[in-house]
């Protein structure tokens, strides 16, 4: 990290310097919006065409884990906003505390995501040769983390979907490709975000951020909130299709 709060030659005031940095970050975030927008578009088209497969796919996700992760991520956005506030009012210890809280919540998210992903591997729900959307219904003993009622609902949904779409197993793989692609890219962004948060923590422990100069905290905050927004859309799109049956 270079020297703090220094005014570079091309700027008139520190304020202008900070505004330029923030504007640059927003332009980067817009390119990220376009990036995720393209993926969302591919998702939307596949969902439109293969709706029955997407509906059963969504019902095989754990709403409890997904909902819990949504709350965790929203909370981490709040602690990040509080870290920015702490840096703006010059409460140096609070910056580190809130950054640590944000990092911890990020890692809780990773932990839950790990549980979810490994469940999908055990349940043969990873696209590929072994993919079998009927696996848990046909082998209930191997899916002991699902209770009997969940399996019964899943079986009913699968029968109805199979009647609507003879190629259900192939099309359910499209849903799971979208699931792993979108949540995987989101998780990659969070890994980068967590790295940036550690870098901020190093700076804040050294007492570098002041009310006059806190641009890095602000900018990483923008990035972290953006990643949160992506999840705000991913949660209903992936976890909440056709839950009412």
């Amino acid at each position, binding site marked *: 990290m270079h020297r703090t709060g220094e005014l570079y030659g091309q700027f008139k005031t520190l304020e202008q310097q900070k505004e330029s940095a923030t504007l640059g970050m927003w332009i980067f975030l817009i390119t990220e919006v376009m990036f995720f927008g393209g993926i969302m578009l591919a998702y939307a088209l596949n969902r439109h065409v293969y*709706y029955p497969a997407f509906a059963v796919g969504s019902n095989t996700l754990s709403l409890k884990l997904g909902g819990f992760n949504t709350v965790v991520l*929203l909370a981490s956005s709040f602690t990040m*906003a509080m870290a920015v506030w702490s840096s703006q009012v010059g409460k140096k210890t609070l910056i580190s505390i809130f950054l640590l809280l944000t990092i911890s919540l990020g890692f809780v998210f990773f932990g839950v995501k790990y549980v979810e992903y490994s469940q999908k591997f055990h349940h043969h729900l990873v696209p590929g040769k072994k993919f079998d959307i009927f696996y848990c219904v046909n082998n209930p003993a191997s899916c002991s983390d699902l209770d009997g009622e969940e399996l019964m609902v899943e079986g009913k949904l699968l029968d109805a979907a199979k009647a609507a779409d003879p190629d259900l197993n192939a099309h359910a793989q499209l849903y799971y490709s979208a699931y792993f692609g979108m949540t995987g890219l989101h998780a990659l962004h969070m890994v980068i975000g967590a790295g940036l948060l550690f870098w901020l923590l190093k700076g804040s422990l050294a007492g570098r951020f002041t*009310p006059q100069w806190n641009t890095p905290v602000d900018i990483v905050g923008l990035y972290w*909130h953006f990643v949160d927004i992506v999840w*705000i*859309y991913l949660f*209903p799109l992936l976890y*909440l299709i056709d839950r*009412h049956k």
Partner: protein
Amino acid sequence: MSEQEHSEHIVPPGTYLAIILTLLLLTGTTVWAAFVNLGRFNIVVALVIATLKATLVVLFFMHAKYSPKRTKLIILAGIFWLVLLLGMTLSDYITRVDYRGVRFPISQVSQQLPVQRA
């Protein structure tokens, strides 16, 4: 103290707290709404709530409400292009009808295909 002459708007913690509570409430609402059968409007409700949440995050957590006009312009331009990307492409796909007069989705079409192949 000239160094403290910042026109930067500091959002108070109370506002952040109100926003996070609203976001959690909206998350509960979207889960609840998913269990009510609204037919094709389930996705509309889900997207409206998600957009409401995203707007709150952008305006308050990301300080867009207190940003200079040129930052707001960049944000709006980004949203505009996203709407073009999604809107123009989907308006094509959701209105498609194939040569037999059968509407897209393929999953319904493919049911009829084996009969025609035979």
